[in-house]
């Protein structure tokens, strides 16, 4: 029986097997099925299948089948990051769900070592890509290793501000072109060029669309040569605000570090050891920095940061402190098992001190302990990470956490922070219309 005939006859699983082969269709893990369950669905929910296509043409067949059978297609990658909140879970009611896992499409299609450009399928994880290109002295860039566990498709589909570095910018800026399958089964390849003026950057319609406008199957990405030299340094500053000002000063002097992080005293003690901020220096902040590039330029960047720190009243600390941070950041060493910060907000340079102060004041008012650090600096701002603690220094959880989170997020927002995953209300109606135009049957990720 053909895939379509099986699908129309009600045997969606059989139809999917006809497309991708029986070994590549199975029941989705319960956690995944629950996460994308229809609101108010009966126990057991609608039929759900997890399929692993091996090529864009198989993805196209799956989408065509979904269009004819009314199934909802939900792209999944490596499952490393929390799925975006479902804005419209009602759209899944009564519909079978097909989770399309891209991880079989995991090949490097072309490595252009002259242009330092790689054409890679969307199911390869960024970490695996790093391992492939590393022997050739190449790398995706200075992006935080925590985000590299995602598939390339996952990395590009969800736009969050953490995927950046001061030296290499935001990861979607490394995209020279993408390939995607649209809901009607057509495959599109955006033009690959270093820069263009032939209309809008159409790749940006697909990047960040969370799989609602098309299923990403491949991307052409910029690579960088591994740096000739890397320098690490750590500085103690009188306060968190002074440390943020030092970062701003250094970036203004055009320093382009590979990574920067600012810890407040409590966070520095938790991450780097109690001795880093002796008792009585609870207002102190620690700035750690890595610079990379041609030796003279990396040394220049290190010195620019040191000058900026000194100008803000800072003192240089033992380089070993920065090495501890760097080894943990790059996964060479496991740190203590600290909980993931509960609150993550972004703020532009001017707002960062006010946001930090507002969250501290809010926590003090609630009688809740707080640790914080700022990281992922780029042209437009940085991400501030907050961990809330009880009186015993343990991370808050459950109801107390939810209550404190609501208050602290409100305080951060009032001070000018933007919560991750905010929506542009001006353009939401346009996003919905664009989606309706490209996917009139609502196949692609309809719950979002």
């Amino acid at each position, binding site marked *: 029986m053909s895939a379509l005939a099986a699908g129309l006859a009600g045997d969606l699983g059989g139809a999917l097997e006809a497309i991708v082969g029986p070994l590549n269709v199975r029941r989705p893990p319960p956690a995944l099925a629950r996460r994308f369950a229809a609101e108010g669905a009966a126990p057991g929910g609608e039929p759900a299948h997890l399929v692993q296509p091996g090529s864009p043409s198989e993805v196209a067949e799956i989408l065509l089948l979904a269009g004819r059978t009314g199934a909802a297609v939900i792209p999944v990658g490596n499952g490393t990051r929390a799925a975006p909140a479902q804005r419209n879970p009602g759209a899944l009611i009564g519909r079978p769900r097909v989770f399309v896992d891209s991880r079989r499409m995991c090949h490097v299609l072309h490595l252009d070592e002259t242009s330092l450009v790689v054409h890679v399928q969307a199911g390869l994880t960024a970490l695996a890509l790093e391992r492939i290109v590393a022997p050739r002295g190449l790398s995706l860039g200075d992006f935080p290793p925590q985000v590299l566990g995602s598939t390339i498709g996952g990395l590009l589909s969800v736009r969050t501000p953490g995927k950046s570095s001061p030296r290499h910018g935001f990861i979607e800026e490394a995209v020279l072109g993408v390939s995607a399958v649209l809901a009607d089964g057509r495959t599109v390849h955006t033009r690959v060029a270093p820069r263009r003026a032939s*209309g809008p950057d159409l790749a940006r319609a697909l990047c960040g669309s969370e799989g609602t406008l098309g299923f990403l199957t491949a991307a052409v990405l910029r690579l960088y040569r591994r740096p000739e030299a890397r320098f690490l340094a750590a500085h103690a500053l009188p306060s968190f605000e002074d440390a943020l000002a030092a970062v701003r000063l250094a970036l203004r002097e055009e320093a382009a570090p590979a990574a920067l992080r600012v810890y407040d005293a409590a966070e520095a003690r938790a991450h780097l050891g109690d001795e880093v901020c002796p008792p009585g220096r609870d207002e102190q902040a620690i700035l750690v920095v890595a610079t990379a590039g041609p030796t003279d330029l990396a040394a220049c960047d290190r010195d620019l940061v040191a000058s900026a720190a000194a100008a803000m009243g800072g003192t240089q600390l033992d380089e070993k402190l920065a090495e501890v941070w760097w080894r943990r950041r790059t996964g060479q060493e496991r740190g203590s098992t600290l909980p993931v910060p509960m609150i993550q907000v972004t703020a532009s340079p001017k707002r960062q001190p006010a946001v930090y102060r507002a969250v501290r004041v809010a926590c003090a008012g609630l009688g809740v302990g707080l640790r914080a650090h700022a990281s992922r600096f780029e042209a437009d701002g940085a991400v501030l990470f907050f961990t809330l603690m009880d009186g015993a220094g343990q991370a808050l959880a459950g109801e107390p956490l939810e209550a404190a989170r609501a208050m602290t997020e409100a305080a951060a927002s009032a001070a000018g922070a933007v919560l991750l995953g905010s929506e542009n209300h001006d353009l939401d109606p346009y996003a919905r219309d664009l989606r309706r135009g490209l996917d009139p049957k609502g196949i692609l990720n309809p719950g979002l």
Partner: protein
Amino acid sequence: MGERRLSQRESDLASYGRDMWPRLLIGIRAGELPPDRPHVVVWPESEREVAAIVRVARDLRVPIVPYGGGSGVCGGAVPILGGITVDLKRMNELSSVDRDEMVCDVQAGMNGERFERALNRRGYTLGHFPSSIYCSTVGGWLACRAAGQMSTKYGKIEDRVAGLTVVTGRGDVVHTDGPIRAERGPNWTQLLLGSEGTLGIITSARLRVAPTPELRVLRGFELESVAHGVEAIRRVMQRGLRPAVVRLYDELDTFINHSSILGGKKSARSHGGPADHMFAPVPLPAQGALPHIPPREHAAPAPDGLVGRALGLFGGGDTARRLASRLRREAVSAALSRPRLVNSLATPLAERVSRHGCRLIVGLEGSRIRTGVEASLVFDELERAGATDQGEEPGREWFERRYAVSYKMSPTFRAGLFVDTMEVASTWERLMDLYRAVKHAIAQHAVVMAHFSHAYPEGCSIYFTFVARSEPVRDAQRAYDAIWRDGLAAASRAGGTISHHHGIGMLKGQAMAAEHREAMTLLRGLKATLDPDGILNPGKLGLPASIEPAPPDEVTAP
């Protein structure tokens, strides 16, 4: 709007019927009026007024064409269906410069030169220096994804944008990405940049600024050939270095623009070797990177070249100059009627005469310490790649005359010729193939030269300049169309993009299908979403003109 900010005067309608698209200029030079014109021109002063105009036009199904400085070279502002031309030049304020955030808020109609000077007075620069800066607007830059001469450091205009305010084809005022990128969904800023007024009218922007440079370093180098020069630039860019300016001229361009034989200035080498000091003087903050246009009496005379010098033997004065001008015009016109022959002779001649191969201009600017360190690394890398240092003089020369090229267009047309430029780009792997393919395609119809500028770690842009006879006008227009048809087809076949920074307009609309193939579905989807009635700049960007021409009485009724 009131009567004073609305016009149906014949002279206004004729003026707003064109931009600086050379195909139209060929006809205008021959005494023809632009074939298209708006029914009315309006000058709004606020985004509220722009939104009201869009809503009226939508009700009446009348086209709207946004208009900035009119300096576009692709016919992007030509009102092919008539309608309302919305000139944004009265929306021309630099509302704020935020020193902490390093951003400024500027209205779209602000003239480029005034904007840069206003930033300079506050100690900042946008770092965007298109050769049209004296006659283009911020909105025009954004609408066509412009590039400036220092884009290798500062990026193209799309790299400097932190957010836009846009009036859509539904008449809504929308704001894209704020100063931080925390929003879900597609990057609307990048979807509206380059839309050339077909998806929305950009009314203001939040742009990233940089401190005015404390140090500027300029140098000239010579390389054996274009291929050697391209390789040298690639090595610099992929080492993680970011000069502000990189301009590599091919053999013919080097010969014509830099050879002392044709009246170009002498290189530093002829003064006795590279300059002793490495760094140019620090520019005054108020001066920034923009020279003032000299008053007419102080303007430097253009180099006279061989013909002029020969005539000088018969004495100076107006008669000799007029005779020189006429002789030159006739000689050039005769030569350009055989472009293939000229191309086949000129390049080998240029290679032989210039001996040193190709000229490369490199410039760095920025904070004093880092720029100094980076300059040393760039120059070392270039010398390792086989470049010969020519000292500071060639760089200074370029810097002083860098806007002059935009003002050579009129004399060229007066001389019975037309000139135009084609800017394509590709990754390094395909760049020399792209260069050869496009050059060969254009050389069948015109004399062509090129320079490589706007470099990136992964590739570079190539800027072809071509000249041919503009008389008789129909033959010239046929030749013009053939150049673009063949040149763009060659660019697409070689894997390059058809436009790096001039945009599409009417000129390249037919090449959009080859450029984007199935991805045009996305562009059409955006058009249907943001401008459902197709009233915004119809017929541009390769999109169909989906509304009927509006009868004039309907337009003027409100």
